[in-house]
């Protein structure tokens, strides 16, 4: 048994990784927030909704550390008894000791049980695996989230590898109650997404023309294959732009003098629209034409690179608050079905 420096809660070995898949990382929510002026973006789950649901289903607080598994294909062995829940991308076969188990619901596991996830056929791209108690790794600058570029957080600042052992916080694990999220409340995954945005900070009329802005909302954007936790890129598109150049900030009219970016900002990086993800860079010199509503950020995390399409829908602050409330509603334990 070991304990992390931050809390003095006891931890027990919970999972041994057999096949970690593409790039599985430990994340927590809301991540490493509050350090943007030192150059940190928050990290944390790309889909904050499925992530938090998975935690709530096994009786954790919504932000507890759990695994993010892009594209599925994952195999681990339980090292203690407790509950696990897999949420996120659809078209995935999850088995416990080769017997199918449902997603979006807590599943009891015992020591030695073998938990596998197939490749996620979609729609949706990322899976979240929560274990009761919550994954225990040391906090780095206030968060357990893995930030791969900086090599910090999570397990030694890296993606999981075969034979890694993850600890979880011990406690009343065995007596913890599990839940199932009713089908009606589950987020809807699709191949053709509609994502809510708010206009600005750099939109029409100074940066984009009115016609450009209309195109931003009416275009069907294809998600580029080179999308990841740092940035989701759409197919290149030539806007007309309301100005000839970026002057001293750079030649392209999308250039501005460097400033900090909001999480979920949609940058015009030359002719390529780029949505900043949780591992994105903190600042830069591109116009941010729109910002994804915070409650809708989860959709960005479920886009399939090279496959899905996106339409952007403009909403206002009241509607954004409504979406926030809906997410909070799903996460309330009284909405869940006790098992």
């Amino acid at each position, binding site marked *: 048994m070991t304990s992390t420096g931050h809390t003095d809660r006891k931890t027990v070995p919970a999972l041994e990784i057999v096949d970690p898949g593409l790039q599985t990382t430990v994340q927590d929510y809301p991540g490493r927030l509050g350090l*943007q*002026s030192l*150059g940190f973006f928050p990290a944390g789950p790309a889909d904050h909704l499925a992530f938090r649901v998975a935690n709530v289903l096994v009786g954790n607080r919504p932000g507890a550390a759990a695994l993010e598994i892009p594209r599925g294909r994952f195999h681990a062995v339980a090292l203690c008894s407790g509950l696990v829940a897999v949420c996120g991308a659809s078209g995935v076969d999850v088995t416990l000791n080769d017997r199918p188990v449902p997603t979006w619901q807590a599943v009891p596991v015992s020591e030695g049980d073998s938990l596998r996830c197939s490749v996620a056929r979609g729609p949706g791209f990322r899976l979240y695996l929560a274990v009761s108690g919550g994954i225990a790794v040391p906090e780095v600058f206030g968060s357990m989230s893995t930030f791969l570029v900086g090599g910090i957080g999570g397990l030694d600042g890296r993606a999981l590898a075969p034979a890694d052992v993850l600890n979880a916080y011990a406690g009343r694990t065995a007596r913890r109650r599990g839940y199932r999220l009713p089908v009606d409340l589950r987020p809807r995954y699709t191949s053709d997404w509609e994502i809510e945005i708010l*206009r*600005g*900070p750099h939109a029409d009329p100074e940066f984009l023309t009115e016609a450009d802005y209309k195109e931003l909302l009416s275009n069907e954007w294809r998600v580029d294959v080179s999308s990841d936790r740092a940035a989701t890129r759409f197919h290149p598109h030539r806007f007309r732009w309301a100005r000839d150049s970026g002057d001293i900030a750079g030649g392209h009219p999308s250039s501005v003098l460097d400033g900090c970016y909001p*999480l979920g900002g949609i940058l015009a990086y030359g002719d390529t629209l780029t949505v900043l993800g949780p591992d994105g860079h903190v600042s830069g010199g591109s116009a941010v034409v729109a910002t994804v509503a915070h409650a809708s950020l989860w959709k960005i995390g479920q886009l399939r690179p090279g496959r899905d399409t996106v339409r952007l829908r403009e909403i206002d602050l009241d509607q954004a608050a409504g979406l926030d409330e809906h997410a909070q509603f799903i996460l309330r334990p009284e909405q869940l079905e006790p098992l």
Partner: protein
Amino acid sequence: MAAIIERSELPEDRPTVTYRSAGDRYVLVEYGAEATVDLCANFFVHAVARRIAACPIPGVAETAPGLRSLLVRFSPRQTSQSAVVEALEAVHHEVPPPSSLTVPSRRIVLPIAFDDSTSREAIHRYLITVRPDAPNVVNGNNVDYVARYNGFADREALYSTILRTEWWNAFTGFYPGLPSLLPMDPRCKVAAPKYNPARTWTAEGAVGLGGPCIVIHPLETPGSYQLLGRTLPITDLFRNERSRLLDPVLFLFGDRVRFERVEESELIELRRQVFEGTYEYRIEVGQYSIAEHLAEVSRVSDEVRSRHLELTAAMREVKVP
């Protein structure tokens, strides 16, 4: 909903303010004219950020400075966009105009080895794997190109310009701990276009120039600034127990740095001392008076104008990547 929430003219010589909507959790505040690198606007940004840190605005979770902007993150459960803008407007009236500001500013001295072997290694990899005909690479380095782009007779003239001035950290961003440095002596202004396309590898500690900014790479990362040389590590994200860095990140916004030229062999020895925990970073706590800065700037304004003409003339003669 419009992208601009409000524009505001502030009294005395404070910069004009534009409040921009940046989603449901952020307001982006921009100061002064759009297309000028104006240290005064940046000083004002810092003063506003420090004021908010000292007297928190209810519901505002953090602020992050840029060259001429401040990103303000708020919690919509505790406040509203309009309340945040109103509170910021009050702060902007309380913060003294730039000409009467004195801001906290530490002085840091860092060694620099110009055109060192890791810079050349990064450039070599770029030529092999990305762009063999990059016009910004001459004889396997970026330094000679940058000297020519700035109208200097040779690389020594470029070096002495960089060494002559203190550099102001306008903000820390992009990657954890990465400073964006502007020259405090306007006569020492240098500029460079960025790589096109970007470089895939840069050494930790690399010193680069892009646009009007010098940056120092805190990590091994891609990059697009012209490589001038290398200095010491500037972040310690792994909290090496023997590290003498007080913070995980050396550069806070508003810090000043002066570079001291060393040979590469000397730099390697100093870097070794950093990793062994015996190197004491040279940091001096202090204040910076903007009034004195402005007086100095106006004293040398003729020289600045002629330097500017020299620079723009030289730029036109040089091929951009």
